């Protein structure tokens, strides 16, 4: 008999996690996994570990960073609601030039509640629930402002 000696951990880059995440969140539990990609820079970097919590009956709002099922690509994505309409959400990565399109409420799996980097929680303040960032992101201003601020900050650091 070819029996496994022990269960083994496994997670690939394109691992289909939508069904697992939905099942965990439906039990009222949080879901923690590694995010890949750069579409949510500067808040979430490639390799950050993200914790998603259930919606708990509340409706997600404009500005919320959410996990949603991108069924066309058979994967979960983490992006921001940049506009909440009647029965549909416009989603967009903060670092993406364009929006993902409109998604139904059923596609929204949960809210991003925590981001960890290098084993430590990243202090993001209200950035995970920010209508202001949503407004800036719609016009791609958020990334441009961030880059400008970083350049300015870098100059100050250099002159200190």
């Amino acid at each position, binding site marked *: *008999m*070819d*029996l*496994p*000696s*022990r*269960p*083994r*951990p*496994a*997670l690939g880059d394109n*691992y*289909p*996690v939508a*069904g*697992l*995440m939905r*099942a*965990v*969140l439906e*039990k009222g*539990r*949080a*879901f*923690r*996994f*590694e995010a890949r990609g750069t579409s949510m820079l500067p808040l979430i970097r490639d390799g950050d*570990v993200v*914790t998603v919590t259930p919606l708990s009956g509340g409706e997600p709002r404009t500005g919320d960073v959410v996990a949603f099922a991108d069924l066309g690509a058979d994967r979960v994505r983490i992006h921001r609601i940049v506009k909440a309409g009647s029965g549909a959400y416009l989603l967009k990565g903060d670092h993406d030039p364009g929006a993902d399109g409109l998604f139904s409420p059923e596609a929204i799996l949960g809210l991003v509640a925590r981001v960890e980097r290098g084993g430590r929680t990243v202090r993001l303040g209200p950035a995970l629930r920010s209508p202001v960032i949503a407004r800036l992101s719609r016009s791609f201003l958020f990334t441009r402002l961030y880059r400008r601020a970083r350049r300015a900050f870098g100059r100050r650091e250099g002159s200190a």
Partner: protein
Amino acid sequence: MEEKIDLSRVYGPSDDVVVREIEGEIVIVPLTSGIGDLEDELFTLNETGRDIWSRIDGSRPLGAVIEDLAKDYDAPDGLVRRDVVGILQELLERRMIVERD
């Protein structure tokens, strides 16, 4: 701590796990720490592991499960028992499988 396994007892999946079959493997996410954690706590079982998992379903004593597996795999009872108990031990320690009344 090592759990004592009794072949006359019935074991089954815990309510605190989420199980899905993905790409031919059984994926188990335990929720015992209050979180479904794909970073530290995700487990997969291969085809044989899946066969064992599906039979430890809370309906029959473990001894009967081992007998069935030995018959289906045409393998000695003792060998099957050793391997099944080994896996069950780990699953019990991780609270993925629990003893049923």
